[in-house]
């Protein structure tokens, strides 16, 4: 039965049109979701809006555990469940929606490289600040992460997540960094993005691609999320073209969004 379903996935993915009932799942917006998850979720939402694919956003306290890969967000389309931006882009491509089809191979490689940069720098910096900075972890991350659960489960899950992220930070070599170094890394990443963007409306030509969605997701979330210090947001604000880039995408694709 399992193998049969895998073949069904490949043959039917292209066949079925995008349903009205497509849903995107993320943790609770008001009390639970953290910076990194919010950024990833916003990136996917921006991408789907850019493709013109409607999706309902549903907030669930156990979204992280529902996800097949354990990462937020994931979408439920038809009877398929796909998580994270990369696989979702592949999934929509199989259904005939793609933003990067018109790119040449060289440009596509460049796009992938910049997306790697954002994931390795911005996302890792967000995780570092959330979980490795003691002040942020104690004031914001642990209370928010554990808010749907009752004591003592809340404490256990929060500390378990913190240990897990710290182990991962050590594995990628960020364990020894200081907060200042992390801010510097973010600045450098923004500088690279700002230079690539220049005065263009989007990173490649006049049409947005998944890179635009990803950058928007992260930058917009950092700018609009309250942390223990405003240092991170300030670093981004020093690049004016990135600011106007975020505003442009917000106005074009999220006008109905009330935030």
């Amino acid at each position, binding site marked *: 039965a399992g193998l049969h379903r895998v073949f069904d996935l490949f043959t039917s993915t292209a066949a079925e049109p995008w349903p009205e009932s497509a849903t995107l799942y993320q943790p609770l917006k008001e009390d639970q979701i953290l910076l990194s998850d919010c950024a990833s979720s916003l990136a996917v939402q921006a991408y789907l809006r850019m493709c013109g694919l409607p999706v309902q956003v549903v907030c669930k306290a*156990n979204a*992280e*555990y*529902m996800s097949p890969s354990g990462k937020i967000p994931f979408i439920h389309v038809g009877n398929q469940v796909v998580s994270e931006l990369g696989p979702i882009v592949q999934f929509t491509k199989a259904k005939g929606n793609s933003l990067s089809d018109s790119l040449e191979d060289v440009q596509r490689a460049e796009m992938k490289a910049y997306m790697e940069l954002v994931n390795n720098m911005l996302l890792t910096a967000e995780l570092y600040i959330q979980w490795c900075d003691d002040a942020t972890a104690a004031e914001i991350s642990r209370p928010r992460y554990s808010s749907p659960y*009752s*004591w003592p489960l809340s404490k256990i899950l929060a500390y378990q997540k913190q240990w897990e992220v710290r182990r991962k930070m050590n594995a990628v070599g960020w364990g020894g960094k200081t907060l200042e170094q992390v801010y510097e890394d973010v600045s450098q990443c923004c500088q690279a993005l700002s230079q690539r963007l220049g005065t263009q409306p989007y990173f490649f030509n006049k049409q947005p691609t998944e890179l635009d969605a990803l950058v928007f997701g992260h930058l917009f979330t950092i700018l609009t999320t309250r942390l223990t210090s405003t240092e991170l947001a300030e670093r981004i604000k020093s690049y004016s073209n990135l600011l106007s880039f975020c505003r442009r995408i917000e106005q074009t694709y999220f006008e109905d969004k009330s935030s």
Partner: protein
Amino acid sequence: MGTVHAKSLDPLPMHGRDLGLHPDDLVEPPEPEQESKQEILENKDVVVQHVNVQGLGRTKEDLLGYEISDVFHAKNLIDVMKKSHIARQRLLRLGIFKEVEVLIDTSEGSDALPNGLDVTFEVTEVKRLTGSYNTMVGNNEGSMVLGLKLPNMFGRAEKLTFQFSYGTKETSYGLSFFKPQPGHFERNLTLNMYKVTGQFPWSSLKETDRGASAEFNFPLGMTNHTLKWEGVWRELGCLARSASFAVREESGHSLKSALSHTMSIDSRNSAIFPNRGALLRINQELAGYTGGDASFLKEDFELQLNRRLFWDSVLSASLWGGMLCPIGAQPSCIADRFYLGGPTSVRGFGMYSIGPQSEGDYLGGEAYWAGGLHLYTPLPFRPGKGGFGDLFRTHFFLNAGNLCNLNYGEGPRAHLQKLAECIRWSYGAGIVLRLGNIARLELNYCVPMGVQSGDRICDGVQFGAGIRFL
């Protein structure tokens, strides 16, 4: 000076005693003394002057006082032997002695009465630490199980047990501490700590429970009661990538803190093949008022009646039922709901494969009932009577049941109506084998009826092994 050894008094000697005269005795003392001894041994009044227990190591003596005190009230020799036998049974049921031997002798010493007797219990304590090691092989997995037991830890029949199971698919362990009340062994307290993982392929669900519980048992008249608090951290996940979305939605962590009470009355003469008697067990569980995320009230009951009919056959009727009412806004959790179907439940259907389901995964239900009518007979022509053949029975059965979710806004009439529609039932015959005193194996030929769409059936031959059967 004859000594009367009363080693193991099973069966109780009812027809006089074999005195086992020693050669020395024949040469022994004058007639008058033997006369008086002879009187003692012939059901004259005796007084038990001393009751001793020998061979104690770490066991505290005050514990044993309760069990053996009744021997003092014996009035004649037969009574002494009866009461000693009962006291020996009571000492053995504490689980702290390997062997108990009873010695009844005439009193000696300065304060000895002419009709005085001394009763001595010679006990052998169990070892401080016993271990066991088993390997188990199941469906596509193997595991090794290590057990450690410390019986009679502090000298008053406390018991500490540790069990550890390490397998290819999962690891489980449990620590349990048992303490009976001295003098009232049936009133006892058990503290547990455990981590258990389970896989439920009928729901495509896997569950890891880490928890602790405290349980207090006590008898009250004819009934046995258990009060229990349990706190469990439950982690649910999908067993396969292809699990249905309804099961995926249940993934995650939750904390259940529940108080439960069980009352049971058991007048059957055996747990496995009872000839007569009845069992009634009522259980309720209230979660959410002592903390935790899960909040519900759960009731379930089990009733079994047995009656002997002609020719050694037994008619047995059983009825199970239960209801789960979530308290508050959140819906019930898949781990708390009831399941129905399978070789231990309504036979002829797949394991727990009746009722609400989504894409082939069974989600369980909030209310159920199940009934069974069985006719047990010994094997035809009674092969191996008195030995191996007695472990088998043939049985003819009729099972029925229903599992559904109730809409709690409606009244009880609507609930009963919902439980009465779409009844699944089955009939058939088979062979049952008793394993020890706890479990049984069944091999049945089943014909399922009343099958609803979504149920998975197992018509034809069905095999089942377990402890609790409908």
